[in-house]
């Protein structure tokens, strides 16, 4: 394996101590050697002097979705270091390991450098370097052709969580396709649905001011969310209590005040039992609940059978402990909460599971209060809508519409769209434009994604690296990394910390032949007679976004972040909730019309199929603070710390199967298999195995993770949340056997 720092070091170190090699033993010419100069200068000044003047550029991190404000230090035309912007309160002025490793992404030898046109079969890896003119002409022609042949909805657009993704969606809209998916339907939409359908909007957790937090289905000290992760530590320092339910002994579990290795898929039972105790013992603020919520009597009746003793059997957590936790939680209310979580793409009933989370919060009366759940604050960044044309020949709606009752129109469902593309029903979708998202790695059931790609006549991927999705594409276009880009503004809320705006200035010019997706789309729009919808520069776009925020642009230039001092608490003091009843809906009326349970009904998690029950495990997936799925695992600096992913298995289970720590195992599910190293550890339940996302890449363009570890997409079944169409990634049972061959 190559020296992980190799690429990142290029140009860092012009051989500062190698003079003797050149000068020989005799010091011939040594008078001018760096060593002599160094010997004559005070030690501290040495490093600085050889590198020249430093400049600092404000940007926002792109190593995950959090967008932490940063300052890029630039010397001699190279980014040497990324520092956190100390004024950026959403991240509490930090950059994590991934943020710090951004330099290695910028200077990664694996970056895409020129437009590439596929030559051999898909996935064969034969590419022809073409010019941008050819690439733009081809992309435009294909968009035109597919639009004509299959209507404009015959194109699918998928953009990742990027500050230029809005331009992809804008392009899709003016081009005329309804078919847009994002990473969200592989991630968070179940939770969003649940809280939106309870409170009328998706809240932020005021972890910092909370006195008691129950965290289930979330791993905040590893899967960092700003400012929640840091605020939780701070709150605990101040005496707040953290109770973690997780089948795995995560770092969050390790630091928590209590850890309960809950049986996977039974979180709802725990939450319903909390409701049972809180209601039966009248531990809630009766006046507040009566005034602000809808459906308490129905809930009361609904949870009457869900006693702690019942929940104990489901969850594996003793009943008296559940009751105690309920009492403690209620005693700390309203400065207490059940943490809503972020990735909720885990179960087929994830929306209802998270509804049970939301309902407990409602009973705590913590809405819009310190230490509770917070409403969205006003940031003031304006959307820049496009006056999209109307295409009469288009079908009525999205290709994945009506398959689940409460899909988010603007996110869709990747899993369901994939099925529609494969079957061609209800109408053909034959072209795919992908920007910085990688469903080949992140969507469960890779075999199906491959079939989807095969069903496509044309796939274009714009990315900074040869992702697995790019590897299967017809046309691959190199994008600059975030450190080379001028980006539009982004509005962010950091819980109670701030409501702010960030943007990006390029720290260095775009490298190689990379072009921002905005430039690409603008040019293509011009060729498709859509120029009027892209007749602006990034600067002009930003000006429109900031039109309502006087002086924000200047503040952004000065501080790298603009804060809107808008109201944090009490936003709802004189306002109804944005629900049908205008109250917090413990009981959701709309669910009845949608054919859904208006209150979350518990169903025990499925058991593994009988024939493999002895060697089957429920597979759960997740990540550490060093991993953002496949976009970070190939990063040289991070790869050194996380060289591969392993399969966590309990020692008792490993002993039963005769498997040893460190050996290679075959992980097999009904849809696929893969091999990886076994990590035998008591940090996981005996009935569950865990692995990390982002490994086992097919792409040979990802030199560090190609064929390294297990790709979760290869083994996870393509199940989905029946309410939103969100992927359901914890519904797969895998069998584990010795792979043969040493680790």
């Amino acid at each position, binding site marked *: 394996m190559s020296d992980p720092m190799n690429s990142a070091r290029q140009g860092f170190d012009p051989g500062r101590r190698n003079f*003797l090699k050149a000068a020989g*033993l*005799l010091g011939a010419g040594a008078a001018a050697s760096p060593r002599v100069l160094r*010997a004559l200068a005070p030690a501290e000044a040495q490093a600085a002097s050889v590198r020249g003047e430093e400049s600092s550029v404000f940007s926002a991190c792109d190593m995950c979705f959090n967008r932490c404000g940063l300052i890029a230090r630039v010397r001699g035309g190279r980014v040497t270091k990324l520092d956190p912007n100390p004024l950026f309160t959403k991240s509490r002025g930090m950059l994590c390991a991934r943020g710090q490793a951004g330099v290695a992404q910028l200077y990664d030898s694996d970056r895409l450098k020129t437009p590439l046109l596929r030559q051999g079969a898909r996935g064969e890896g034969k590419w022809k370097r073409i010019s941008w003119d050819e690439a733009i002409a081809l992309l435009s022609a294909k968009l035109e052709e597919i639009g004509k042949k299959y209507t404009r909805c015959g194109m699918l657009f998928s953009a990742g969580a990027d500050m230029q993704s809005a331009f992809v969606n804008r392009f899709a809209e003016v081009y005329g396709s309804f078919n847009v998916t994002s990473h969200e339907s592989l991630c968070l939409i179940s939770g969003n649905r649940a809280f939106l359908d309870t409170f009328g909007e998706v809240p932020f957790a005021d972890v910092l001011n909370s006195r008691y937090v129950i965290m289930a289905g979330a791993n905040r000290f590893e899967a960092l969310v700003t400012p929640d992760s840091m605020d939780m530590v701070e709150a605990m320092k101040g005496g707040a209590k953290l109770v973690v339910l997780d089948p795995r002994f995560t770092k969050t579990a390790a630091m928590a005040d209590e850890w309960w290795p809950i049986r996977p898929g039974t979180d709802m039972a725990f939450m319903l039992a909390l409701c049972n105790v809180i209601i039966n013992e009248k531990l809630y603020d009766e006046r507040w609940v009566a005034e602000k919520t809808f459906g308490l009597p129905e809930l009361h009746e609904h949870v009457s059978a869900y006693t702690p003793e019942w929940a104990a059997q489901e969850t594996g957590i003793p009943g008296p402990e559940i009751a105690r936790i309920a009492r403690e939680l209620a005693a700390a209310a309203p400065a207490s909460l059940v943490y809503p979580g972020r990735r909720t793409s885990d179960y087929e009933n994830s929306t209802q599971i998270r509804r049970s989370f939301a309902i407990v919060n409602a009973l705590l009366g913590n809405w819009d209060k310190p230490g509770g759940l917070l409403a969205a604050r006003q940031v003031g960044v304006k959307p820049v809508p496009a006056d999209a044309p109307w295409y009469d020949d288009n079908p009525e709606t999205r290709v994945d519409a009506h398959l689940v009752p409460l899909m988010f129109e603007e996110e869709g469902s990747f899993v369901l769209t994939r099925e529609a593309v494969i079957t061609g029903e209800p109408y053909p979708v034959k072209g795919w434009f992908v920007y910085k998202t990688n469903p080949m790695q992140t969507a469960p059931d890779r075999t199906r994604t491959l079939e989807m790609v095969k069903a496509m006549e044309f796939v274009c991927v714009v990315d900074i690296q040869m992702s697995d999705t790019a590897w299967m594409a017809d046309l691959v276009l190199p994008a600059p990394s975030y450190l080379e880009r001028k980006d539009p503004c982004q509005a962010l809320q950091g819980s109670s910390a701030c409501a702010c705006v960030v943007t990006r200035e390029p720290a260095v010019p775009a490298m190689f032949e990379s072009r921002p997706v905005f430039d690409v789309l603008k040019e293509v729009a011009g060729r498709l007679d859509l120029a009027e919808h892209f007749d602006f520069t990034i600067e002009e776009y930003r000006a429109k976004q900031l039109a309502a925020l006087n002086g924000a642009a200047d503040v952004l230039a000065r501080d790298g972040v603009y804060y809107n001092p808008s109201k944090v608490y009490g936003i709802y003091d004189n306002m109804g909730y944005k629900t049908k009843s205008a109250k917090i809906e413990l009981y959701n009326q709309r669910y009845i019309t949608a054919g859904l349970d208006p209150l979350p009904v518990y169903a025990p998690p499925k058991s593994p199929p009988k024939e493999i029950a002895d060697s089957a495990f429920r597979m759960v997936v997740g990540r550490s603070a060093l991993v953002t799925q496949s976009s970070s695992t190939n990063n040289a600096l991070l790869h050194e710390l996380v060289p591969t992913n392993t399969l966590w298995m309990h020692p008792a289970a490993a002993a039963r199967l005769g498997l040893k720590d460190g050996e290679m195992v075959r992980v097999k599910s009904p849809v696929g298999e893969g091999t990886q190293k076994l990590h035998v550890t008591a940090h996981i339940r005996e009935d569950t195995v865990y692995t990390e996302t982002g490994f086992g890449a097919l792409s040979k363009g990802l030199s560090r993770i190609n064929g390294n570890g297990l790709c979760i997409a290869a083994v996870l079944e393509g199940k989905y949340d029946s309410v939103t169409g969100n992927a359901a990634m914890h519904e797969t049972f895998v069998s584990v056997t010795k792979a043969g061959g040493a680790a």
Partner: protein
Amino acid sequence: MKRFERHTRLDIAIHWGNAALWLLLMLTGLGLIKAEYNPLGGWYPALLRAMFGGGGGLLLAHEILGGLWILCLLLYLGQNPRGAAFFLRQVFAVDLARDVLWMVKKMVLMTLGPKPLKMIGLSTDLPPQGFYNMGQKAFAQAAVAGGFGLALTGLIMVWSQIGLGAESTWLVSWAILLHWIFAGLTFAGLLVHVYMAAVNPEERPGFRSMFTGWVPEDYAEHHHALWHAEVREQLPDERGIVPQRLGDRE
């Protein structure tokens, strides 16, 4: 009186060049030993490091001097391989009975005087010596071995800075120890050498020969009887000096 050539010009040059570089290497090398271990105490390394703009400059100077020294010796070896071979043969050809006795008696005589020898019944006569007496040989042996050791260990330390991997640092660690020991041993020898050759009035003709190249016959006869016996019949050249003919001295 007949004069006999003891040293060619090249010999003289190499001797004094060697001496000068030795001195400089010793001065700089001593400065590289940190205060805690320095026989001269802390002031010396502090002074030298200050003079060279820091320890790094001093180290570099020492390394350059060492390189020059090795180069000079290599050049000499290349220029005068026969002379070098002669020198080495002479230096390492030890007649145990004769030379050891000479050495012991000489040491006693020079420090304690003739009395102790007489007390144990030994004569104060010294066995005859060849081109080099045993004292010279002993120092030359120490200088050759020590010099070789210093050069080798020095090169290892330089190599450490430009090529050696972390797994080979044990070699460097030992090299430091040995460099120190070799330097100490040769320095001890040097003290005696300098006294005997340059201070002791008895050896004045020998000392002078390190500038002129020749010694008078009586000196040759008295101090290097065996050598004198070999060369006394040879004819002097036009300067009146019997030239060295390496081939004759076998």
